[in-house]
């Protein structure tokens, strides 16, 4: 066979078209029924939270006097109303949107801090690593609620600060995971090659280390979003979260728990929504982990 002959080009083409790690992972992910179901449910939830409020006939904080504590299905209120006569369905859609948004924004904050912190500590190593990880250990030993209350009283109960506060606390685990991965990456040949090519630490971390951390980070992200939705609800439950008339899944459940004797639907529907959302995330997370870490098949 002569180099450059058609056959060789053909072979090369086929070799290039070989399945990459990510192709494999995608194939495995879509073969996982629970994960696919989770993705569909989540897509529906996101769509409902974005489009839903425009489709329902009531606004989430419109008080309708005669319709107080109306049961599900009565007088056009598909899921009933609360103690002020506000339509539960529209409040639920608004609350779902707020909870999902908090989950995504806070996770992005924790992702940014955690990945950079862990990658820098792991790559540079030595003294720097020791100091940076000691900071993480120290913050780990402080109760979560301590930070949140202090941030809350310092900056007031602003919903964007809740995003930031939760994200600023949740990055610790992410940084530990990333550091561990970085430690195993940094002695690989391709990093050595990058260094030999004259790249600086900053370039190597951003261009070579971080992209290769994607697998475990993606898995952890899908598990962080539900954890943050729970954390936000937990704060709302203690009266420290989203302030009325805004709603989140947490405030709805907390309110429902107070009125559950008279109006059980106020507890049941928000709880169901939350559980289904969390399950969807969990299935996706489990599916991603199996897809990206094939040793356990």
């Amino acid at each position: 066979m002569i180099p450059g002959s058609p056959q060789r080009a053909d072979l090369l083409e086929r070799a290039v078209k070989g399945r990459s790690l990510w192709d494999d992972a995608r194939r495995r992910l879509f073969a996982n029924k629970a994960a696919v179901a989770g993705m569909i449910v989540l897509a529906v939830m996101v769509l409902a939270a974005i489009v839903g409020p425009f489709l329902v006939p009531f606004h989430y904080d419109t008080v309708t006097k005669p319709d107080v504590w109306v049961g599900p299905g009565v007088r056009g209120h598909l899921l009933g109303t609360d103690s002020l006569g506000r339509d539960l369905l529209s409040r639920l859609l608004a609350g779902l949107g707020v909870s999902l948004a908090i989950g995504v924004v806070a996770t992005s904050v924790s992702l940014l801090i955690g990945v950079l912190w862990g990658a820098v500590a792991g790559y540079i190593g030595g003294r720097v690593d020791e100091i940076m990880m000691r900071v993480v250990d120290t913050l780990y030993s402080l109760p979560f609620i301590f930070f949140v209350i202090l941030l809350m009283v310092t900056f007031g109960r602003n919903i964007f600060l809740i995003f930031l506060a939760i994200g600023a606390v949740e990055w610790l685990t992410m940084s530990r995971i990333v550091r561990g991965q970085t430690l195993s990456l940094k002695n690989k040949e391709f990093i050595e090659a990058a260094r030999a090519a004259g790249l600086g630490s900053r370039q190597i971390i951003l261009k070579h280390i971080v992209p290769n951390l994607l697998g475990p980070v993606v898995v952890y992200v899908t598990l962080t979003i539900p954890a943050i939705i729970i954390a936000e609800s937990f704060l709302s439950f203690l009266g420290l979260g989203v302030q009325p008339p805004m709603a989140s899944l947490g405030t709805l459940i907390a309110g429902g728990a107070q009125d559950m004797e008279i109006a059980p639907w106020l507890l049941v529907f928000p709880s169901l929504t939350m559980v289904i959302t969390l399950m969807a995330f969990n299935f996706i997370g489990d599916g991603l982990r199996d897809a990206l870490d094939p040793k356990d098949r």
Partner: protein
Amino acid sequence: MLRFLLRRLLVAVPTLFLVITVAFFMMRAAPGSPFVNERQLTPQVEAAVMAKFGMDKPLHEQYFNYLAGVVKGDFGPSLKYRDKSVLDILHDNYKVSLILGGVSILLAAIIGLSLGVIAALRQNRVADYLTMGVAILGVCIPTFVTAPLLVLVFASRLGWLPTAGWNGGALANLVLPITVLALPQIAIISRLTRAGMIEVLRSNYIRTARAKGLPESLIVRKHALRAAILPLVSYLGPAAAGLLTGSLVVEKIFNLPGLGKFFVISALQRDYTVVMGMVIVYALLILVLNLIADMLYAALDPRVKLS
């Protein structure tokens, strides 16, 4: 072993010191003071109160005074509860948290471990799907959903159990809070155990044990379980610390006088000394439990050397 312990304790001291420092200055940086909200104090009276608690001194001096006190085991007086020291308050409230947290983590460990092993041994069969289905539900249903729902069913509708209250730690009052605390832990522990067990059962030394003709029950108990619960050991430390210092939601819903509820109230009222006391207790618990976890790890896994 002894050298490892000493070394770890030496490392723990600076961590604890850092925790105290960070918490102290973060708290003082937050606006508010323990002496507002009450009757409007005249400037003279306020100055006198501040002087009484040594808060008229510069912040760094207060910090060193506080540190000196902590070293001697004196956490100072509460700023809100007259004539009570922080240790009094911790002493009065730790029992509820200890009983609730201790019993639920113990129950969760026993039940979760058994379920996880059963699921792993029956992998991909009905028992496995059933336990793991329930476990997923347990992970996804937060305590503030289970607690009111269980109260609604078992207390309000059926009337079998009291809705709330401590009642001197009567068993009937403990059932619901402990169940609510234990359920998610059972779910997590059974999932961890199942995953560990499945991995271990595929390893070469288990195949060797089977080839030797050892009975399956012996293989599971003596060979597999020891290795399979390793991930569990490192999970249990922080989980136990969280439960022992109180689960806020459960204490709030069931109106129990535990540490968690006290912590939030004190932080909101800026009862600086009480909050600091709780922070130190929490940090100590985490450090100690992690240390125990590491030692257990070494005891269970002969490959791990403590040094």
